[in-house]
């Protein structure tokens, strides 16, 4: 039996061969092909997707579990830690670009498409080219989502959750585990409250994904954001479980920081949503 003292952390840790990546690829292939079949209105696709999702979840548990064991086993030196920091930072950058393109679609339709359609009087006479619009061909009465009800409350909720997670981080750094746990639990609760209110808001909406460009941009932006909040809350819960399991030290806790970076990113996206999707309508 080898022990940790045996490990030479002078060297950059290169992990042993692993099955998890291949399993992850199989999971995504099942998810994608199942979705293709489901989109043909064949429910068999749903079963393929469920199988893919289960394999994906197994892979995530297995892979992250391995990384956590390696981390606790002391295999990661400072250079490995820096790699994880760069990696998470660039991952969030790619997410910024993903949302950037969706915001681009919103601005493009508001600033260019809708006014242009207003000029095509021969094609669509009498089209009132003002935002919010479902376009000239979708005859549907709808009321846009106002900013000062649930969205404003949700803004407060997410901003406070940004504060509580920072408070939890201070607790972790000062080795105050009670404050750490309380901060994390508060953050998760605020995240869950946000998602609950968002679902409630969707249920009261007078428009759908199909209500022209307004409905499309509204739901794709808020929907992807909501999915990110959900994922963030799940990751925070994993971190909370790890805190209860005694993981993380005041010096070494990058997993916590990575999730809090992600949480702050989701927070910033919400602020932009609040301003451009809800407020300046």
């Amino acid at each position, binding site marked *: 039996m080898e022990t940790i003292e045996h490990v030479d952390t002078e060297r950059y840790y290169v992990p042993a061969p692993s099955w998890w990546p291949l399993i992850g690829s199989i999971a995504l292939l099942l998810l994608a092909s199942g979705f293709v079949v489901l989109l043909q209105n064949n429910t068999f696709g749903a079963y393929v997707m469920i199988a893919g999702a289960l394999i994906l979840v197994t892979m995530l548990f297995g892979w992250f579990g391995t990384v956590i064991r390696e981390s606790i086993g002391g295999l990661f030196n400072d250079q490995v830690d820096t790699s994880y920091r760069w990696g998470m930072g660039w991952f969030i950058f790619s997410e910024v670009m993903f949302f*950037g393109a969706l915001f681009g679609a919103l601005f493009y339709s508001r600033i260019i498409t809708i006014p242009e359609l207003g000029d095509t009087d021969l094609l669509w006479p009498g089209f009132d080219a003002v935002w919010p619009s479902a376009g000239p061909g979708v005859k549907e009465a709808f009321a846009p989502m106002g900013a000062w009800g649930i969205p404003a409350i949700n803004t407060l909720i997410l901003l406070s959750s940004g504060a509580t997670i920072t408070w939890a981080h201070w607790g972790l750094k000062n080795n105050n585990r009670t404050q750490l746990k309380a901060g994390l639990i508060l953050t998760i609760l605020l995240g869950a409250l946000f998602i609950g209110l968002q679902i409630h808001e969707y249920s009261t909406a007078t428009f759908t994904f199909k209500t022209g460009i307004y409905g499309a941009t509204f739901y794709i932006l808020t929907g992807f954001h909501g999915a990110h909040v959900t994922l963030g809350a799940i990751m925070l819960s994993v971190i909370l479980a790890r805190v209860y399991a005694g993981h993380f030290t005041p010096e070494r806790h990058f997993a916590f920081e990575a999730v809090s970076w992600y949480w702050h990113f989701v927070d910033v996206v919400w602020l932009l949503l609040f301003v451009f999707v809800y407020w300046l309508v």
Partner: protein
Amino acid sequence: MATTTLHDAHHDAHPTGVMRWLTSTNHKDIGTLYLWFSFIMFLFAGGLAMLIRAELFQPGLQFFQPNLFNQFTTMHGLIMIFGAIMPAFVGFANWQIPMMIGAPDMAFPRLNNWSFWLLPAAASLLLMSFLMPGGAAAGGWTMYPPLFIQGGMSYDMTIFAIHIMGLSSIIGSINIITTILNMRTPGMTMMKMPIFVWTWLITAFLLLSAMPVLASAVTMLLTDRHFGTYFFNAAGGGDPVMFQHIFWFFGHPEVYIMILPAFGILSSIIPTFSRKPLFGYDSMVYATAAIALLSFLVWAHHMFTVGMPAASQLFFMYATMLIAIPTGVKVFNWTATMWRGSITFETPMLFAIAVVCLFTIGGFSGLVLAIVPVDIQLQDTYYVVAHFHYVLFSGAAMSIMAGVYYWLPKWTGHMYDERLGKIHFWLTTIAFNVTFFPMHFIGLAGMPRRIPDYALQFAEFNMLQSIGSFVLGASQLLFLYTVIKCIRGGATAGDRPWEGADSLEWTLTSPPPYHSFQTAPAFK
């Protein structure tokens, strides 16, 4: 479990059998996987090109119905770009970057494995789509709505394949960028990195910026197809032109994603065989960065005929022309590197010189196409096809070939057969020009692309092009043979088979040890 992990961390030899490839965490093995995968895709997509050229051998419909012909052109483009060119460069990044910066491996070896094994998953979706009702996607590799919204289930498969390949690119880029920023041997400052490493750093940045945008675009296509949204449908206030804007915001950086690593390979090969250091290292770095930044400001030069305001057209025209400056800096630097060098013409150098000349032709035809009134005439003609094949085949693909010949001795420990390499070079270069140079003429004369039939006056050139393309395709089998022959044996290559080569990989044995640099090497 934990103890097994610790135990395995000490293994310093290749795992054997199928494990070595399926579960690899070794940058060289994963690089090999990338290169072989890309070569298989290259042959497949090249086969599609042969079918296209067979149909165009004579006017009139010969073998294929127009819909099938359009499937061939669409899949030829998608597979060449996402299956052949991009993975080949990632293969080079995997093999070379850790060795060039003095690292043991990539920063995230397991993610590295994942970014590779996502590609066969995506490719199987793409290839299977040929067997679906209605055949593969036929809307062009650019996936423009409304055509792409109207197609059958193979279009969904294409969309998901794009998602998975995008994920692979994003994971791969995070890995490469982190490796370069964090794994360099002490003393190797950013401005001392080999240019190949620099070009990949900037390429990875471009990938991280562009691929998520493509993912957004195809996601909106998917919701338009199946969930009743109106992103690209004017009836609901959407706009098909908006897709083109988003797509080309990805698409133009994408062309630099496919050429910057090629520039890096050239910048490694030309100094070696000129036996002189690279001329203008700093300006090379700045030019690469300038090209990358400008690449985000020129996308609408692909859309001069869709009806944009004149002011936008002028902006995109001038911004596009501006890219000629940093690109010109590079071409002059390579030329100046060769100036008064004691040059020898081994196969990698032959390819590199051919790329400098032929890529420059592609660059010039790009400048021609940047001019709005000219572009309006030439949009969707064979002139455009000629332009991007000069950039992508004689730019990117031939640089890949140059790089393979250059580093094969390091990778395999054997010298390749120089005579076969030279034959492959001349066949490729001549056949390439026979295939694609006449496309300039028939394009200027108005022959449209993506059409299986054509007017009689184009018959001679088309027959000539088809003959050229068959020779071009067949000569790649010689390439395959030469590479396999080199892997199986040949004269022993020393650690440094090229006397002019001086980056860190040449200080390792050929083939290199399992973990490239166990301890950080000294770097002056």
